[in-house]
């Protein structure tokens, strides 16, 4: 990392991209030193959206934190809920009824589709397409959002998962609705790809830009689609086989160069794989309970839930990477220590390496292709 302090006062043009800027996806700031349009140094500045998430959770009963995890990565609260629920279940040793486990997988994959669609849309916005891909993505996302609202009560802040299950059962109508979404989405993806994938301008802008070598990605702890675009086969759904992921047949798409285009296309392929998982889950889902009876009293009286002293780390493959929740219990109703391993934050650490020597416009799309959400980065 170049020390940007040394460059201050030099001939270079110093520009602050953010915290108020159309394409920093929130209140992220990039301090950039430019020579012409070429980036010579880049200093990411985080923390504008710090909301004390971890300390708040350490002063709340375990159940109450679930609502706060929605606010981490606000594009896919379902995945956030999943990770936290996994961590608490590990800590307290709760079992999850089978139907609930299926519902969880369905919701997590729908959240992944939503997230990837939004990411591609906004990446194209960063590339300068005037909102058309975003609105097409919104059109499809809206259907999934409607479903989320029907099952959880809220479109984005779902707060749907509970320890040992989920809050509400899926009705038959919900399931047919999901089936319809799953059957219609491939046609939309075809259209979306016709609009984007082969577009020469997009290819010119994205190919060989912001290359992230595989070894650097591994060393920096990058996870998720960004890592897989660099050609590293690592997916926690396969590694941990948490939830029910061992039951489904799906592949892990890998990129070759690790540039922005690979990151874009790997996500399109991941949506297709998610659809495969959804199809299998929808055909296999059994009847039954959706909430472990043992946990019900704890949800009614959250302060009665005092897990035994110990620690647990629950992690999932969130759409952005490895989302981990680390919990340490000291036998009181509140966790003694609570930590979130936010993929957005860790993935952001290689931003400078990817941007150096590129143009200003490239920095914007590289940032866009990492897929950060500031709620998660700054917590």
């Amino acid at each position, binding site marked *: 990392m170049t020390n940007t302090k040394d460059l201050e006062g030099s001939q270079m*043009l*110093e*520009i602050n991209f953010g915290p108020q*800027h*159309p*394409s920093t996806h929130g209140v992220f700031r990039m301090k950039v030193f*430019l020579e012409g*349009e070429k980036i010579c140094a880049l200093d990411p500045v985080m923390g504008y959206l710090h909301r004390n998430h971890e300390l708040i959770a350490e002063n709340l009963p375990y159940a109450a934190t679930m609502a706060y995890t929605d606010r981490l990565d606000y594009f896919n609260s379902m995945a956030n809920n999943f990770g936290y629920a996994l961590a608490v279940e590990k800590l307290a040793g709760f079992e999850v009824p089978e139907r609930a486990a299926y519902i969880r997988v369905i919701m997590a994959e729908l959240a992944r589709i939503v997230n990837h669609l939004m990411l591609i849309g906004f990446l*194209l*916005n*960063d*590339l*300068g*397409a*005037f*909102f*058309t891909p975003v*609105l*097409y993505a919104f*059109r499809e996302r809206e259907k999934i959002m409607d479903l989320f609202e029907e099952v959880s009560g809220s479109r984005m802040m779902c707060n749907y998962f509970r320890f040992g299950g989920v809050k509400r059962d899926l009705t038959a109508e919900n399931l047919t609705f999901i089936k319809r979404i799953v059957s219609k989405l491939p046609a939309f993806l075809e259209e979306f790809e016709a*609009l984007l994938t*082969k*577009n*020469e*301008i*997009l*290819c*010119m*802008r994205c*190919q060989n830009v912001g290359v992230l070598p595989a070894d650097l990605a591994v060393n920096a702890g990058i996870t998720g689609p960004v890592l897989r675009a660099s050609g590293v*086969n690592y997916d926690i759904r*396969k590694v941990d086989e948490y939830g029910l992921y061992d039951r489904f047949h799906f*592949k*892990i*798409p*890998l*990129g*070759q*160069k690790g540039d922005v*285009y*690979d990151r874009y*296309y*790997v996500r399109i*392929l991941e949506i297709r794989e998610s659809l495969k998982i959804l199809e299998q889950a929808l055909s296999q889902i059994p009847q039954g309970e959706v909430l472990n009876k043992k946990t019900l009293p704890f949800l009614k009286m959250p302060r009665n839930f005092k897990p035994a002293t110990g620690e647990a780390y629950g992690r999932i493959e969130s759409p952005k990477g490895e989302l981990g929740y680390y919990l340490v219990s000291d036998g009181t109703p509140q966790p003694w220590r609570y930590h979130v391993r936010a993929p957005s934050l860790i993935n952001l650490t290689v931003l400078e390496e990817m941007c150096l020597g590129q*143009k*200003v*416009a*490239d920095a*914007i799309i590289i940032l866009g292709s990492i897929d950060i959400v500031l709620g998660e980065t700054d917590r």
Partner: protein
Amino acid sequence: MSMPPFLRDIEFAVDLSLVNAKGWCLDLLGHFLPDWTVVLASIVISGVAILALGPLVMMYLTLLERKVIGRIQNRYGPNRVGKWGLLQPIADGIKMFTKEDIVPAQADKIVHFLAPVVIVVPALMVFLVVPFGERMTAVNLNIGLLYFIAVSSITTIPIFMGSWASRNKYSLLGGMRTAAQMISYEIPMTLSVVPVIMMSQSLSTNTIVMTQVGDLDLHWFIFTPWGLVGFLIYFLCAVAECNRPPFDLPEAESELVAGFHTEYSGMKFALFYMAEYMNAFTLCGIATTLFLGGWQGPFFPSWLWFFGKTFALICVMIWFRGTLPRFRVDQLMGFAWKFLLPLTLINIPVAALWFFVPERLAWLYSIAIFAVSFWGLVKLNCAFVPEKRIYPLAD
């Protein structure tokens, strides 16, 4: 075209109705005013017509753009103010007028104020030579086309003024990009017009339209190989000249916030926008004149034909905006210098060939030349050609 004579008369009357209206007004004035006032009145009438047309066109272009892009994105676009949102531009105008005018504390006040004022001037001045219809060119300059190119090239200076006077780094970057882009694209644009000048042997916009005259057998220049290629190049350059996507780098929203007009608000901002839209209109109007036969066309009044063709071209610009992502700076330059410029240079001899070789053979030759040169240019620019990639699916 077989048409009963009385219909033709009616058509002629409708066609020249606007011209006749002006003549009638002047006659009326001539009865009781000295001669020189009549000349003055003639100038004033034409001037007022243009001064009113420019902003009016701009206002409704914004509405058209928002509507079309809305439909492209499967939404309505503005539909609240008036029927189909027809009063939306007026609402926007009122908003712009009443907004606070913010000038940065460190800005160069005078230049900051002058930039938006100056930018409208060339945008309005080019309206002078646009042939809106039969006998509806404000000034029939014999160097009309050159005048158009010259005046529209002034536009860079007010953009510079705005970007420099704002004392904002985004504005500065936007200004630099504008300069580079405008200079680069002016060259292929000017050269793409050369075949038209060669064929019509005139620089006057009126004469150029007249050489494309023809009733149903269309003699528009776009129906020749060099005309088609020239039109495509001209149109792409026009899109770049008025900073519209995919060449909107000077005001690239996702990178430079708003480029050179980042620090402008209220009416000054509106003036920048007005200039941009009026430029888009005149550039499309000139494209119509040069390649699409201008106001030529059967059945309808000539000015209707002109506006129809021009708005069709503007719709294509809007369509581009709704579809394409933006180029990067180096790609933009490369596209102008390494692709468009050689193609225009090839286009000029092809046009000369057309002049000397019988038509059928010329078609064959020109298509062959263009195909080979296009292929060659793509090969030479292989750095910009997308790669084919295979994505392995791991377990």
